[in-house]
């Protein structure tokens, strides 16, 4: 009984802390946050794996300025990414579109989660490996 009580006390504390954490999540759509987010999704044109946020190459800086201007013009995230894609091609985005073959990239992890839970569930009935 004492164990249950001590666990319950901790659980309440956890809920409170979690609540505090969730409450302090900033509203993420400030212009600066949007720019930062978009910059992390666009690949630096002359680099191998870096985003424009991470590289200070000329092409990268130019693209960063372009993103800032586009955000200031009030364009939506999708429109900005699409227009950059229309000049550089789809390989400029660091995460492929989720339509078409890109679905695979998210489907596999999702299936993985199902397999994980399923496997652990099956253990409740005697497993033999």
């Amino acid at each position, binding site marked *: 009984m004492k164990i249950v009580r001590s666990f319950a006390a901790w659980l309440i504390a*956890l809920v409170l802390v979690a609540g505090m954490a969730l409450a302090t999540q900033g509203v993420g759509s400030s212009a600066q946050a949007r720019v930062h987010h978009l910059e992390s*999704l666009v690949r630096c044109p002359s680099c191998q794996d870096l985003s424009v*946020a991470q590289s200070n190459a000329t092409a990268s800086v130019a693209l960063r300025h372009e993103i800032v201007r586009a955000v200031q013009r009030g364009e939506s995230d999708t429109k900005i990414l699409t227009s950059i894609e229309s000049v550089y091609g789809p390989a400029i985005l*660091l995460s492929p579109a989720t339509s078409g073959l890109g679905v695979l990239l998210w489907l596999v992890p999702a299936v993985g989660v199902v397999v994980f839970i399923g496997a652990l569930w099956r253990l409740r009935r005697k*497993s033999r490996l």
Partner: protein
Amino acid sequence: MAVWIGRLGVYLCFLSAVAGVIDLGVARRRRTAGHARLFSWLILLGIVVAVIDMQVALVTHNFSLAYVAENNATFTPLLYCITGMWSALEGSLLLWVLLLSGLVVGVVHYYRRQGDDAVVQWAELVLFVVVGFFTLIMAGPADPFLHNPAHVLQGAGPNALLQDNPLVATHPPLLYLGFVGFSVPFAFAVAMLITGRVQETWPLEQRRWTVLAWGALSLGIVLGAWWSYQVLGWGGFWGWDPVENAALLPWLTATAYIHSVIVQDRRGLFRVWNLSLAIATFALTVLGTFFTRSGVLQSVHSFSSSTLGPLLIGFFALVVLVGVGLLAWRGDRLRSVVGVETPFSREGMFVANNILFVGFAIVVLLGTVFPLLYQAINGGQVTVGTPYFAAVAAPLSVALLVLMAIAPLASWRRASAAVLWERLRFSAWSGLVVIVALMVSGVHHLTALAAIFFATVAAGSALRTLRGVVRAARRRGGWEAAIGAPSTAGMVVHLGIVILAVGIVISTSYAQRHEVTLATHQTTVVDGQSIRFAGFAHTSDALRSQTLLKVYVDGHLLTPAVTTYNGRSGQTVGTPAIDSNLLRDVYLTFDAVGGGDTTSGAQVQNNLPAGSVVLGVTTEPLLAWLWLGGVIVGVGSALTMVRRRHGEETA
């Protein structure tokens, strides 16, 4: 001359491997002991001759070898002459085979009294085949001893980024040691499956060595990250680059393996898992060499593209076919009498552990080859970069931290919730205190908070286990017994991982990048630090010329620079300067110079007055924890050697 001594060495190595395979095959037929020792020494002799020949050629700048002309120059310092052997594709194979051959000699010597045992013979045969394959590549398409027909007086010198930092001497050897080390569990897994003797304890006896190989691999990866961080100039340490992923993939399955073997040791379970993981780790290592050396995926770290692709994929396919085939053939012999009774037990958590690590590897592999798959099906190009990998790695890592927190305290067979909570209570409360403290000091990122919460609890579990172990052992046998106790090494490694994880989470979530423009003697404040630009300095010697910036960060002098290396290619690279302490790293790069100053080699911005510079200033909190954590992981793995051998344990 140098060409033929080297080639002779490689041919000797290859022929001895082939002869060894034939000899063992014959010995197996006749049920005799064979001559594995002889052939293993011949293999080692061959590769040592080749390596010495290459090293002498590099140190004496013998440009009659094409490899030396491409990777060495008369003014290359001694250290970079030696490391030049693994600065490019052909030479790196020399290092690989050298380490592999040394290991083979060690294995054959260790099992010398069981030289007529079928499992040992098959394992040695497999190892000889692996040596034979890699030497075949060197004898054929990737010949390090190609003659240079031109009479050049000067070589190109190594790639600028490979002579910029002494870590080039540590990262590849340690990494290769790790890769090569896992060919032994693979060889024995195949041997056990072929002979059908899958109930035996070979992997358990080899546990100490496998953990050591894992430690070398982990340290190799961490050092690789540290090296990239110091040299590449973007302030990061991991780009989810195909070559980086190539090293991560076998590490993931290897980590699953060393954990899974614990369950086989304790309760005889997980045989199929362990054999599969051993085979998968080796297969992923071969796949990794394909990514690095085939030129099929573009990477900052890859060697020049070559015709090795089909050969390496062929070997990968062979390894996989043999592995899966053998597992299917012997599948019925692999089932154990007892099983896992409930997921809520130490065994159950190890199952979860295995699935998470294998899942992690599958997802990283998918992301890495997706561009190729897309190109094959749709014909276009896509990039899969950090946003994808980070999105899938984050929940997986948090889940693994949860396991690290709970599993060391869970009982075998069936964990009691009450007992578990009693053991976790203190750490659980500590975790809450830590994240409240973090929230108060401004950390709000949810994933970061979750990760650090579980990391704290995991640290608590590790410390608690260590405390129990130390107390019990000291009563019995003093400090050596304490260090040699079963969980000590593992828990120390867990502590290292926790520190590493916290470092990764905080530095990536809260890194700040700025570009500041400063005139000479001007000061500015960035992230609470004063930055003062004090002027230029120039150095030049036979190897390179540098333009340095004297920058004072809170009074400490840092000199970010632009360096031009002499040599045929005349490469110019940025040389970052880092001020590091346990709380934060300040990372400075010389991004551009103003006015018409064209001598430095740096980017020129004509709209700035002469004498002013553009500095990249990146502040990353807790970045040094990564390297600290890595060192602790290395130390912990080494501690495993102090353990008593399997079979001598009384517990």
